[in-house]
């Protein structure tokens, strides 16, 4: 598998670090705060996990020296090469190895270098990790397993450094799928994922590793899985997204409020599976209109699952058809990325259409 990371990493970082442009979660009792970008917040979460859990180990391709995105920097020096180490270059091995560690009571934190390369591990994740507890009648489990992986568009990642595979895993009972959207959320959600009693696939928006910066509490805190966050309250339309798409949606929401004079409710789903049906339903019952947006292709994407559920449960409240603003049903194209992505303008148009329906 070709990792063409080195040559492109300067741009992968997403330009100069900047504070994120929408209000992140306030953490109570999180201790003093420190300015961190997304990769530093994740590093901080893993530092806390290794420090508090002597059975926690981190492994994957190139994690020993700090990882190609710097997420594990300094951890091998601090906790030893037995606990933070490189594996051979083999994703199915990484996932299987992690399952074995978890089945034996350790706390494995596995890294897959890009979500695009998680597919060789698909069998281990879907047939093995997801079914481990169920098939043994609850005698054994690999619930302490967390698989972290960078996902999503990055400007020029082409086919294999851009994918958003969350819906492949969302359809697998036994797995939890989590995607954070800010440094504060990333840290709290990763700590919760590591300590969760079920295997978790944790996708990190690599576009935001360096570009999203905020004051992150240095203490140990968790953000519960399975709970969406209402980023911004509104009454005319509900916008639903996750991960890096949250920035795009905020931009679209601001544009719609300004140009259409409406009030938008913005929801960060955070957990893809099991997703927070209640929060979404309550919002749509209030607004009667909804746009769901993700980078992944439209057909079979997670927006389809959400819209079907909304249709089942909010049928009488819906004032307009549910809109899905997604990637097209093509592979992720290099030079056409700007045209491919469901950007703020496409979302704005969709909001406009829904409002004027």
């Amino acid at each position, binding site marked *: 598998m070709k990792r063409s990371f080195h040559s492109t990493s300067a741009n992968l970082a997403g330009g100069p670090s900047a504070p994120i442009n929408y209000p992140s979660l306030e953490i109570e009792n999180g201790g003093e705060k420190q300015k961190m970008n997304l990769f*530093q917040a994740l590093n901080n979460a893993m530092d806390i996990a290794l420090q508090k859990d002597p059975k926690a180990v981190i492994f994957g391709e190139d994690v020993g020296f700090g990882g190609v995105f710097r997420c594990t920097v300094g951890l091998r020096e601090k906790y030893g090469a037995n606990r933070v180490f490189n594996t051979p270059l083999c994703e199915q091995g990484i996932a299987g190895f992690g399952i074995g560690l978890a089945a034996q009571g350790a706390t494995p934190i596995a890294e897959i270098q890009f979500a695009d390369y998680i597919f060789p591990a698909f069998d281990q994740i879907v047939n093995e990790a997801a079914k481990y507890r169920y098939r043994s009648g609850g005698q054994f489990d690999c619930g302490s397993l967390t698989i972290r992986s960078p996902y999503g568009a990055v400007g020029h990642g082409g086919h294999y450094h851009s994918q958003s595979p969350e819906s492949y895993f969302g359809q697998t009972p036994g797995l939890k799928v989590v995607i954070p959207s800010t440094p504060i959320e990333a840290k709290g959600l990763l700590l919760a994922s590591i300590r969760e009693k079920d295997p978790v696939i944790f996708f990190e928006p690599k576009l935001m590793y360096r570009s999203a910066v905020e004051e992150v509490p240095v203490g140990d805190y968790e953000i519960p899985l399975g709970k969406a966050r209402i980023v911004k309250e509104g009454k005319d339309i509900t916008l639903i997204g996750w991960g890096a798409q949250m920035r795009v949606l905020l931009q679209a929401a601001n544009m719609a409020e300004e140009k259409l004079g409406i009030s938008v409710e913005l929801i960060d789903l955070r957990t893809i599976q099991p997703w927070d049906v209640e929060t979404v339903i309550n919002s749509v019952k209030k607004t009667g209109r909804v746009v769901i947006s993700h980078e992944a292709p439209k057909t079979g994407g997670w927006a389809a699952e959400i819209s079907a559920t909304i249709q089942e449960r909010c049928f009488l409240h819906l004032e307009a058809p549910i809109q899905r603003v997604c990637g097209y049903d093509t592979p992720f194209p290099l030079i056409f990325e700007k045209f491919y992505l469901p950007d703020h303008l496409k979302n704005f148009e969709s909001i406009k259409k829904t409002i004027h329906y």
Partner: protein
Amino acid sequence: MISQTSRVLLNLSKNNGLKRVASNYLNRSVVSTSSKTNGIRSFSSKVNEIKEEKENFQYTNNLEVQELKHYIPCYTIMNQEGIVQSPEQDPNFSKEEVVKMYSTMVTLSVMDSVLYDVQRQGRISFYMTSFGEEAIHVGSAAALEMSDTIFAQYRETGVFMWRGFTIADIINQCCTNEHDLGKGRQMPMHFGSKKINLQTISSPLTTQLPQAVGSSYAQKLAGEKSCTIVYFGEGAASEGDFHAAMNFASALSTPTIFFCRNNKWAISTPSKEQYKGDGIAGRGPNGYGMKTIRVDGNDIWAVYNATKLARKITVEEQRPVLIEAMTYRVGHHSTSDDSSRYRTVEEINHWKEGKNPITRLRNYMDRKGWWSDAQEKELITEARQTVRDSLVVAEKQFKPSISEIFTDVYHTPTPNLIEQQQELLEHLRLYPDEYPLNQYLDSDKILKNN
């Protein structure tokens, strides 16, 4: 933080073997954060510091294509007549121990015969026999400790029996009743038991291999004096997970025993269509730098000695060992397979009669005067009776509660699972006579309570 990052990288660069990626990062970080370098990379001083690692091979002027020349020999000590050709290698178990081993092998074989027929009558849905591989099971299991974790494929029933898995346990699983530890969710032969340190079997082949490596890494990390043994067939060794596991175990130095049952057939595919190299053992030493033993799988003492030594190496040296046990799958692949479609009766009989592992041990016992035809007859009668009695009891048991459809998917049922269970119960209340509810534990209670 950026300057901190480059400090870490600078420290790292002092270590030998700094990777390419790291040095790229280092250069970039220095370039971007240090004004002194002004983007000029000075490699010359670095080059002088590079110490060339000593290669494990020699250079030659001969252009010689390498070919497979030396096949790994197969370790065997007891012949078909039960004679241990090098007596000093006889593990010299007591009469009592040998009788227990032999009884386990015979009981397994008897149980297989009965349950095979039982499946043919439709009383269980599926079965897989172990005919011909009994010595592998008992010989290897006897060399292990209970603290050693087992990951298995599916044709290792004798290993579990040796560890205390009873005929009733096996039949309850095959009948998928309420006493099945797996709660009736998997096909027959997919055993798992915390009590005997057996991780639950799954159908996807070879997935258990990298898992076993992870398991043994955890044992190593915890400082345990134990290992993980993982069983698999020669067909399974063609899967990518075999390569992943062997390479991980070797590179990460884990106490793993890879135990391959090379029985010459993967369903209908003969091993000559499975590989062209020196079997599975041939991949060990040169392919993965792994200590390797090839052993006669129909010689229980050879299997015992090989496994015992492998265990000693894994636990004491904290490194993996590969064992390839050469044997023959005497029975059909499973109850869904008719092996007469792809192999001859002559071939089967050659192994069944000429190299039978049970007969071999029986001959060993006869030489010592430890066993008689009368005892044999009694053992077989008793085993057959136990299997039949267990079956009759197991068939009368309830199936697990239907609520078990929804438990154990997650540690705690998610909202959608709670909803879906409710939907099912409401549906069953509408059509109670259309489903076999009375076969399932506590159905009345569950339908009423919810």
